[in-house]
């Protein structure tokens, strides 16, 4: 009789693992996958692979009790909030943090607006604006966030959220050019130098239609948020020359193609640039002379949040210099927290991809929300990709 032993094996494997995971669960209060009854606030050290800072800074200010149930539903970018920070927060406040991730702002909208219950979200700048316009954000109670003073004034009161009514900056970073100097000896200064015939099939760029169009706008001296049909037509002509030269479109990990030698240069996020330059000296990072877009990710509280005060507590917590430093240690982006920057390694501060110079910063613009023009832009780029 041909008994399905292997089905049984698989079930046994599953049953076995169920049993094992059951054994693991008690008293881990701050990791994402615990059961619903709140567990004691103290957590054993280092239960994650990241920074070993389970011993949170001892000099914290006293933390007020918000009166809400001790839960926080955090909805953030994947791998953008270090586990150690979450653990430290739980240890300090006794609030358990449930983490759910997303990989794009649009995914975040989709899930937020279709029944997601989140207390804190991490939108990019244009997303903050879109959400404000749609009335989806809850105004911040600034008195609960005194640490806001640590933020660089350059990053406060930005066009997408005047006076920071709804959001607090988390991390920022420009888009830029990375060049493999072993394969490319030219002096690359901007987009025009990248998109040359001689680099055909050697280029990687972000798979983000809005970004791509903004580079064309920068080159044509059009303000990047001035998305009109007329301007798009002009950009289309330029892009029709650029895009056939591209070998790879990748927003998730453009560094792969560069490291593998399949491409020689590219236009990528600064986080990727920082990883590449730290990995091998042959990679050079350049801010395009035509100008570039700087993204600013922020923390904000949705209107439907059930624990807004806990959320404000968390925001204030991550604005502490030592905590903010922990975030920077994990992610080589631009930290807008000046007090934290004073604590950073000189090496980290010296990485040009993470911390552009003042004059480079001046060449950077942020995105504003363009509503349904996003679809037209995507259309344009897709059409050009297909040819």
């Amino acid at each position: 009789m041909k008994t399905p032993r292997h089905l049984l094996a698989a079930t046994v494997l599953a049953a076995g693992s169920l049993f094992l995971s059951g054994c693991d669960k008690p008293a881990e209060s701050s990791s994402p996958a615990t059961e619903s009854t709140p567990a004691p606030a103290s957590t054993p050290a280092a239960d994650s692979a990241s920074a070993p800072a389970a011993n949170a800074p001892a000099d914290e200010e006293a933390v007020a009790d918000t009166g809400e149930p001790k839960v926080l539903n955090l909805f953030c970018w994947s791998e953008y909030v270090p586990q150690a920070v979450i653990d430290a927060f739980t240890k300090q406040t006794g609030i358990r943090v449930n983490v759910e991730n997303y990989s794009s702002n649009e995914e975040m909208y989709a899930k937020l607006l279709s029944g997601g219950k989140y207390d804190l979200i991490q939108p990019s700048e244009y997303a903050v604006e879109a959400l404000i316009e749609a009335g989806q954000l809850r105004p911040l109670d600034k008195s609960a966030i005194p640490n806001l003073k640590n933020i660089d004034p350059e990053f406060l009161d930005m066009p997408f959220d005047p006076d920071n009514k709804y959001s607090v900056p988390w991390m920022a970073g420009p888009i830029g050019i990375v060049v493999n100097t072993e394969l490319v000896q030219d002096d690359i200064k901007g987009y025009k130098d990248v998109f040359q015939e001689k680099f055909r099939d050697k280029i990687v760029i972000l798979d983000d239609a809005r970004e791509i169009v903004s580079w064309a706008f920068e080159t044509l001296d059009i303000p990047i948020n001035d998305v009109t049909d007329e301007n798009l037509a002009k950009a289309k002509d330029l892009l029709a020359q650029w895009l056939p030269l591209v070998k790879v479109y990748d927003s998730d990990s453009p560094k792969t193609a560069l490291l593998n030698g399949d491409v020689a240069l590219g236009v990528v996020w600064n986080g990727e640039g920082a990883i590449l330059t730290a990995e091998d000296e042959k990679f050079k990072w350049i801010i395009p002379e035509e100008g570039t877009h700087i993204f600013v990710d922020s923390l904000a509280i949705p209107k439907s949040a059930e624990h807004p005060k806990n959320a404000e507590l968390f925001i204030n917590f991550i604005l502490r210099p030592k905590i903010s430093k922990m975030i920077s240690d994990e992610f080589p982006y631009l930290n807008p927290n000046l007090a934290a920057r004073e604590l950073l390694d000189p090496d980290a501060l010296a990485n040009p991809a993470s911390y552009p110079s003042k004059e480079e910063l001046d060449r950077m613009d942020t995105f504003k929300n363009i509503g349904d023009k996003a679809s037209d832009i995507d259309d344009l780029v897709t059409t050009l990709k297909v040819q």
Partner: protein
Amino acid sequence: MAEAATAVPVATGRRRWPSGPTFQRWFLGGWTLLVFAFLYIPILLLVVFSFNRSKLGIRWTGFTTEWYGKLFSNKSLLDSFYNSLIVASVTTVLATLFGTIGAWLLFRYKFPARRMLGLLIFIPMVMPEVLMGSSLRLLVVAVGGSLGYIAMIIAHTTFCFPFVLVGVQARLEGIDPSLEEAAMDLGATPVEAFWKVIVPYLMPAIVAGALMSFTLSFDEYIVSVFLSDATSQTLPLKVYGMVKKGLSPELNALSTIFIVATFFLVLITQVIKKRP
């Protein structure tokens, strides 16, 4: 040609593996070996790189077992692995059940709109996952249900069972009709006949379907994006999230352990089988 003279038709039960001239046997064997090599090349690489010192997994920079250590302290990764295992196992059971019974019912009985039903089952296979995931999410929310394990299992089962059904249907084609009739003549009810006669006949297709279901569910990303909640993050969700920072070799370590464990499990069951 060839061996016509000496071979005896198989009523004696003697079998050559596989049948046919020696050359063909070696050819098929060699081909199969090549196919397995093709399937396992990236896996071999994966295993080797789980011992690689460099985090980026592109170049070999030295031997280390640190990633295995880090894996065991990476609770959220392990949890996501268990979640995937649980969801995939339950999905497999349900999908196999639905697929087998569904195939049999469609085959045996003249239900009204049978053809229509037969077509409906293809929808989950051809509908893009992002559409299925988002509409199911809306459905769950609209009826006031909650996201998480149950929602994910429902969604996974929905797109896995057609795979089982199609496979079982193929096996049913050309089945000897007298099989079931004989059983019933001997006093079995239709259900008993099904269970005791048809199911054993279908077993290879059921096993194949189960294997496919498990694989599809275990690796499912998009649908899980829409239907999971904070406590039910599955492995693919975790993995996709890690891409920006670079896929840590902990993942390689996890996969290596899983593969090795499965190998041993399978080997053990094989040994047990040989005993009697």
